[in-house]
């Protein structure tokens, strides 16, 4: 199947600054693809180039098989998008705003206004002025606008910003439904947990460079696992656990927790860890397996960007980079 988006050595420079650096990727159609990276890493710039809003410094882009910017009009004919923020005319109602955009997209788009509003749950507020909408409501109206031209491809830049937990759940369900309808969805996000719940495929980007891409399962499998130990004496535990034969390294995700990175967790490793701690008189509050998470993989690839991700990373603290253990030294 032809990729819905094809990026070939795409680069964007602002003077000396390289915002997007030689990105090449084919985005599969009919799936939810996520572009994951911290704020300021070039996600939005890439989206703007894909949609013909910004020029490419070098490389080429194809959307729905048409080159951008050469055939932008044809390429965008069935593309809906939210870029950066959903912006509207605040002095007009939600419905009148959609009518303005429908006027630019033809009669079929008018017919989609009511179903789109219904789909995002804004029918009852459609006659209210957008100036009075919350960010979450504007996000939803942005999705409604993106659906007006019955898109084959939806490009959504940080679409979950401003959504409350219930809204997030609804949004995730809507994305899944859109994919089930055969549409392709391209989302960008810096929220790992969100991406993990929505995406089939993803690419990780940092400082304009694509670090890796692939299916969610493949990416998670490519990472390491960890044994997490909450202890009464984390300093001593860190020294001890770093010397375990199967340790690839240790890190301190929380003040009282030490993570022992391992290639594959086996039960005897847990037994061994507990026994070592007990024999050395180190109190254990909790001993658990850390499963495969995208968050772990992301941190491995980016060298620990938790601080830059503004606390959206849950239990991971800045400086989560680990001290290599014996197994890691052996691997080298």
């Amino acid at each position, binding site marked *: 199947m032809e990729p819905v988006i094809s990026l070939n050595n795409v680069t964007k420079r602002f003077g000396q600054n390289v915002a997007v650096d030689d990105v090449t990727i084919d985005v599969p159609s009919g799936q939810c693809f996520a572009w994951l990276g911290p704020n300021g890493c070039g996600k939005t710039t890439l989206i*703007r180039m894909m*949609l*013909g*809003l*910004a*020029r490419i410094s070098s490389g080429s882009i194809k959307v729905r098989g048409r080159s951008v910017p050469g055939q*932008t*009009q044809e390429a*965008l*004919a069935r*593309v809906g*998008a939210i*870029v*950066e*923020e959903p*912006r*509207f*005319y605040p*002095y*007009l109602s939600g419905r*009148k705003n959609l*009518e*303005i*955009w429908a*006027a*630019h*997209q033809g009669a079929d788009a008018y017919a989609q206004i009511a179903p789109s509003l219904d789909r995002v749950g804004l029918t009852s507020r459609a006659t209210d002025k957008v100036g009075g909408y919350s960010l979450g409501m504007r996000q939803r109206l942005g999705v409604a*606008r993106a659906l007006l*031209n019955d898109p084959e491809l939806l490009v959504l830049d940080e679409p979950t910003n401003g959504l409350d937990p219930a809204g997030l759940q609804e949004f995730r369900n809507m994305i899944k439904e859109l994919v089930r309808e055969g549409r392709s969805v391209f989302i960008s996000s810096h929220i790992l947990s969100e991406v993990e719940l929505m995406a089939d495929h993803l690419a990780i980007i940092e400082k304009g460079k694509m670090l890796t891409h692939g299916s969610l399962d493949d990416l998670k499998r490519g990472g390491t696992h960890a044994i997490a130990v909450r202890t009464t004496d984390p300093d001593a535990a860190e020294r001890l656990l770093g010397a375990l034969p199967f340790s690839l390294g240790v890190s301190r995700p929380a003040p009282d927790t030490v993570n022992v990175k391992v290639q594959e967790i086996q039960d005897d490793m847990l037994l061994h860890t507990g026994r070592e701690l007990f024999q050395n008189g180190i109190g254990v509050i909790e001993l658990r397996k850390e499963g495969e998470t995208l968050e772990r993989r992301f941190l491995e690839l980016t060298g620990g960007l938790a601080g830059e991700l503004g606390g959206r990373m849950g239990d991971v603290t800045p400086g989560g980079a680990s001290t290599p253990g014996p197994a890691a030294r052996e691997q080298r």
Partner: protein
Amino acid sequence: MMVPLLRAELRRIVGRRGSFWGAIAFSLLITIIAVLAATPDQDDTAVEIASAAGRYSGILGIVVMGALAGSYDTANGTMRYLVLTGVPRWKLAIVRLLGMMLAVLPMAVMILVIAVAWGSSEGGMTGKDVLESVWAVLCTLWVWGLVAASVGMLMRSNGPAIAVGIVLFFGGALITGLVSEYISKSLANYLLPAVFEQVAALDTPDDNSDIKLALGGAFAVLAIWVAALTALAIARTNRDEY
């Protein structure tokens, strides 16, 4: 395709109620004050006085309305979503300019209704007076509407666009005077405020005035000014990143 786009553009302009209705209200207020305060005579007929008061006061509102029409979408971030509809950028820009020309019509009609009504009540109004007033009002509002919308598109930001539009109108007359006084009288006759005044008033050159351009030449120079500004605005809209 153009009609729905124009309708949408008008909806946007009229929706900014402060600038749209404010411009009309201010212009009408000044026109009514002129009607109440002025005494018409043979040189300045009632219809001329009222239409002049309306169109000159109207310029201020038109400059604000036009600058907003030109800059609002870029400043507000909605321009990128208009571009994403696939409508060519040049078409979006032209629709904006045409929309502005249509949006000034209610103001023009209201000024002219008051002017003609006053002229009728005073008596002695000729068809030529009415036609000249219609032309003067439309020319003023269209020229400054297009200039302001173009400046708005070039500036991309609401505040600076309004400021530059106002400076262009009020400062333009001053600059024209300075150029005429200290640099060259004939050069001053080619500047926008000078040719605009000549064309709006349909003035032909005579020995007793400073007007040096033939009326046809003034029309051509004014058209070049407006075309140059609008072409720059369209070119910027085509080139910009959103």
